[in-house]
């Protein structure tokens, strides 16, 4: 049942949905041969960098293990690969939610981020656990192989101090530095995620509160407002024959003026919503705002013949808004606009 409804919904709403989401194109499939070559190459590099006789957490001392660039490159390649895979897999994780039971969906919600983040951590760990050479680049002597049994420790003498390897040419990255880098990366990712979430829900970051009663435009803001209104006047002058276009241009100028003052029209806003938003922010454009909005609605959404009277009314409303904003603006700004 759910599957049927889903397909029916796609059929009816596909067009609008496609427009709304910008028509995402499908990814090209990667040839299998390329994948196979990539995997073999990665295994070869790993084999040359590691020393199988030693443990997993021991630094690689293979033919390539002495070069730190190999570890850095491998870590970067791993991270890029994981990032690419995550981007491709994300739609698949998001799809097919309809057929899942609630328990399965919760399990999926928990497992998906865990799996994706765990694979990303591997690249970071590989970089952290590698011992970089700091000397002249010559490899140190190989560690002595345990061919003879170690002497039994005696309680009388302290155990011998482990001899430093290669006179200090094997030093790992400082742990605190790695942790700092990791913390910075996590912080950046968190900020990006929060901003994206805010934008997704069409919220805005809280603005820094201004001084008391300073919701009216001041200084540069007022100049921007007046500039937008003047651009509307110019648009009005450029639409001599089309009264409908002139009215719409006037309204667009009012929108620009409000946007310049920080009251930006949201995608889901109707003209009434914009007026309400402007009034809430202290930028109510007086009675001319609703008048211009009503003219705009008629011009934009009706086939009524529009004549010079509509154009004149829209221009008058725009002038009224300009006067209102001019009164709010400080004198230098008004003088600057008057010279234009």
């Amino acid at each position, binding site marked *: 049942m759910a599957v049927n409804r889903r397909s029916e919904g796609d059929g009816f709403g596909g067009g609008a*949905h496609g427009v709304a989401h910008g028509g995402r194109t499908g990814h090209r499939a990667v040839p299998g041969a390329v994948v196979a070559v990539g995997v073999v190459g990665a295994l070869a590099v790993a084999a040359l960098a590691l020393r199988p006789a030693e443990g997993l957490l021991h630094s690689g001392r293979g033919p390539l293990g002495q070069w730190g660039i190999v570890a850095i490159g491998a870590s970067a390649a791993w991270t890029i690969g994981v990032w690419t895979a995550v981007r491709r897999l994300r739609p698949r994780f998001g799809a097919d939610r309809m057929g899942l039971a609630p328990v399965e969906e919760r399990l999926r919600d928990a497992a998906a981020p865990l799996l994706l983040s765990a694979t990303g951590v591997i690249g970071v760990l590989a970089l952290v656990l590698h011992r970089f050479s700091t000397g002249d680049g010559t490899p140190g002597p190989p560690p002595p192989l345990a061919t003879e049994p170690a002497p039994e420790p005696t309680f009388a003498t302290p155990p011998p101090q482990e001899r430093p390897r290669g006179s200090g040419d094997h030093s790992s990255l400082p742990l605190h530095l790695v942790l700092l880098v990791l913390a910075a990366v996590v912080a950046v990712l968190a900020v990006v995620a929060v901003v994206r979430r805010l934008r997704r829900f069409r919220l805005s970051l809280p603005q820094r509160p201004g001084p008391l009663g300073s919701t009216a435009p001041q200084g540069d803001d007022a100049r921007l407002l007046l500039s937008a209104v003047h651009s509307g006047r110019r648009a009005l002058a450029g639409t001599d024959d089309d009264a409908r276009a002139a009215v719409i241009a006037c309204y667009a100028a009012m929108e620009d003026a409000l946007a310049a003052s920080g009251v930006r029209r949201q995608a889901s806003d109707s003209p009434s919503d914009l007026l309400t938003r402007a009034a809430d922010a202290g930028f109510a454009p007086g009675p001319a705002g609703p008048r211009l909005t009503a003219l705009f609605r008629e011009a934009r959404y009706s086939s009524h013949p529009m004549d010079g009277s509509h154009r004149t009314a829209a221009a008058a409303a725009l002038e009224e808004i300009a006067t209102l904003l001019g009164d709010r603006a400080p004198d230098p700004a008004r003088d600057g606009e008057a010279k234009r």
Partner: protein
Amino acid sequence: MTTPSTPPLRTAEQVGEQAGAVLREIGRAVVGKQDALEQVMLAVLAGGHVLVEDLPGLGKTLLARSFATTLGLDFRRIQFTPDLLPSDVTGTPLYDQRTGEMVFHPGPVFTHLLLADEINRTPPKTQAALLEAMAESQVTVDGETRPLADPFLVIATANPVEYEGTYSLPEAQLDRFQLRVRMGYLTASEELAMLRARVDRAAPEAVLERLAGPQDVLAWRAVVERVEIDDDLLEYAVALVGATRDHPRISIGSSPRGGLALVQLARARAVLDGRDYVVPEDVKDLAVPALAHRVSLRPELWVSGISTDDVLRELVDGVGTPTTRRTAAVSS
């Protein structure tokens, strides 16, 4: 200007004034429910049926009776009970001993305005009897189809809090209602005004004046049919309906009938506002009452207190309205 034999075509502005007068008259009896009254009036203009869903004692029945009185419509009421039979709704043929023939006795559905009180108290079989009447304005009994009165409007009430002995309306029947109206509680000042009005009139209910008749309602609906709607607004309506099908919290989205209802209600709202063209506010403001009862939330949300109205409001805030300038060039 017009010949005396042909009644002049009414304008949207005239109909808006007449419908506004009706609303003001009903407002004398139903205090403080302007939004609910407007929505019911929109259904009257758009030719749809209304589901009034809210708690007991909020004036649902009074609202329906007031509309019938003020609009001058023939009014019947059915109190739905568990033992109500389909023939109690549609009517039944009875044997006439004098003529020796079966004579059809029409049921209460043969009226202009039918109040289906507490519709969720009757079994699905009887609820289904109302389906054909609501969808097709006709009744079929014993293989014979009989048309209903024109206009025909059903105002059904349902109590959403009582589950014992009730039968939830199936999605198919909910889809037949053009919009769902929530009454809600009065504010303290409105409740005070209601009590003051009751004391002042010294009668249980206000006596309302008849301001229109069935022919007026039909003429109003003809005006609604002439209201124009821009292609961008139709696309907006389609986007809203489509969004209900893709929303992660909704398991079953709105049917195409939801889009039809939304557009028709938006045209009715334009007329009520005295316009002969639809604006974005008409569509946006009616999306919740026109679509919320047509969608089903995912089961895990049932216990979380989230209603379809909440989800629809969130959804409407996420769908873009038409842009300021036209996307396609049209001749002015």
